[in-house]
């Protein structure tokens, strides 16, 4: 097959992105086998993968679709808790850990995607600030509801209660999975770094292929000029919804991966702050730049571990970074200043804006 010039460029760019992830995996394995990996860093490996998937999937909504979602952690939460329920529910039937993990990830993705559809249909009729607020509200509702739900497994299957543990009526043989505000306890740690990397690669495969497909171009056309896109016959709702549901489903899978890395999971973990954290990854990595999201998510998850002394100032620094990145990339005068600053470092290279990946 002959590739056009842009096709070649894209192939190289995509290969770099995939290669980067595989290389990171191999590097970590080498460092680990020589015994140089600190235990705190080893504990961070799965969360890093989960956050990378979160960042890449949010970038699909923010960068490619051009809408702000402030409830991305809500989808993560849905995936996390449905994943936990599935993994514990299958404990007696399926012995193999990887199979249960796969089932948990799939169910997490499907449930989150389903809610993505439910939220997306009404929310995507709105634009800009309203959509951001609706997704924020959705995230809060999810957190609120999960905090009040009790789920257990008895001999006759899954039981759900909104009041307390006793009303589940499990008897002595049942196990309680979700204890309202106490969250899920006794979760099997099924997630591994290898599984995380595979999920990252699958996510990249889905997102990169979507972006470069006909649908992806349609989605970007909707982002760039809604009215023009509509006038050439692009169904706005359909493409917006496609992007939003895929983004939500990937966040759900990331949530399931994240949850199955810990023995206890609480709904509070997936609050507004988590949504903002992922947004920081996306903004810092470059809105619309998938590779940037991966690097930002990885670096910003590892860095706080290394700079424990500055932990108090970390959030403050994130806030300042968010503001500065927005100001320097959107204000004409500051934009010029930034380019002059960058030009000082690389003389001779042409000054041009990095466009969307």
């Amino acid at each position, binding site marked *: 097959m002959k590739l056009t010039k842009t096709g070649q460029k894209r192939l190289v760019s995509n290969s770099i992105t995939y290669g980067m992830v595989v290389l990171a995996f191999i590097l970590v394995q080498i460092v680990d086998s020589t015994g140089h990996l600190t235990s705190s860093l080893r504990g961070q490996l799965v969360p890093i993968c989960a956050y990378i998937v979160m960042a890449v999937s949010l970038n699909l909504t923010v960068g490619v679709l*051009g809408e702000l979602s402030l409830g991305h952690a809500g989808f993560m939460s849905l995936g996390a808790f449905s994943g936990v329920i599935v993994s514990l529910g299958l404990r007696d039937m399926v012995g193999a850990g990887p199979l249960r993990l796969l089932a948990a990830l799939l169910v997490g993705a499907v449930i989150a995607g389903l809610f993505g559809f439910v939220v997306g249909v009404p929310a995507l009729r709105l634009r800009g600030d309203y959509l951001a607020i609706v997704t924020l509200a959705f995230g*809060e509702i999810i957190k609120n509801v999960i905090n009040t739900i009790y789920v257990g497994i008895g001999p006759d299957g899954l039981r759900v209660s909104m009041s307390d543990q006793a009303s589940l009526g499990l008897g002595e043989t049942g196990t309680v999975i979700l204890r309202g505000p106490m969250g899920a306890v006794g979760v099997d740690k099924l997630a591994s770094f290898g599984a995380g990397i595979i999920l990252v690669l699958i996510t990249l495969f889905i997102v990169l292929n979507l972006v470069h497909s006909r649908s992806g171009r349609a989605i970007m056309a909707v982002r760039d000029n809604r009215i023009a896109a509509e006038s050439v016959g692009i169904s706005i709702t359909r493409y917006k919804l496609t992007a939003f549901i895929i983004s939500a489903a990937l966040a759900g899978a990331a949530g399931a991966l994240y949850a199955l890395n810990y023995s206890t999971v609480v709904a509070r973990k997936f609050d507004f702050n988590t949504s903002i954290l992922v947004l920081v990854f996306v903004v810092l990595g470059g809105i619309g730049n998938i590779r940037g999201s991966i690097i930002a998510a990885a670096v910003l998850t590892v860095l706080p571990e290394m700079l424990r002394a500055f932990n108090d100032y970390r959030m*403050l620094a994130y*806030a*300042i970074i968010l503001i500065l990145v*927005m100001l320097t990339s959107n204000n*004409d005068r500051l934009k010029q200043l930034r380019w002059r600053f960058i030009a000082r470092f690389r003389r001779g290279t042409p000054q041009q804006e990095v466009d969307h990946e």
Partner: protein
Amino acid sequence: MTFLSYLVSGLSLGSIYAIIALGYTMVYGIAKMLNFAHGDVIMIGGYMSFVATAHLGWPPLASVLLAMLVCTVLGVVIEQLAYKPLRAAPSLAVLITAIGVSYFLQNAALLIWSSNPKSFTSVVRLPSLKLFDGQLTISSVALVTILACVAIIIGLTFIISKTKIGKAMRAVSEDKAAAQLMGINVNQTISVTFAIGSALAAIAGVLLCSAYPILMPTTGAMPGIKAFTAAVFGGIGSIPGAFWGGLLLGLIEIFGKAYISTQLSDAIVFSILILVLLVRPTGLMGRKISEKV
């Protein structure tokens, strides 16, 4: 009697939401942006009043004035530094910046005052009102809150409809470019709007902390979001809309807590936001704006 006491606390909470929602709705009407940091200005107002009364020993009224002054300055500074450079930027960029400012304020407060909750002494130190032979007790804070809200809405309506600056605000919200051509200083008008909104946020912060006396860096976040819900409920950009939206939301929250579920009250409030946006995206009193290509 319990119904009446729920009604009073609903009205008082609703009044606080209404005062905050006024700030959102004015800024949205004029600058066409969602000032996400508004909720955190409330929190700063609360802390200012707390510092003035608890550490400096100032009288309550003086502490309120200090909070208003600090918040007004803060609001204008935020506008000048973070929002003004982005006047021509896409709304996504402005919104992310506003979230950044909100996050900045919360974490700055966290560093200054730590995450330990401070117990706030009410600024209203009057005995509570007992009606029907003591069957119904209305706290003085609730009463002052409702009265303050009514006074503010009357004052604001007067400013907007009768004064020169109010006229300028209406003109800018209608059409920025045309207002500029008529010799209105658009930037100054936007700054004044932020100043008024932030002063109102300070009052709301003090009243909120007087009614619910726990002060934390995240105190303002949730009321801020709920007040925005109220503003959307009433129709963003509309001042009477913010008032009625705030009152209704306060009543819904308190009655939802009392008769449906305590834990799910936030979920109820936010479900209403989603429902309103679905059925009537312009809110109860909002104007329908047709889109121009």
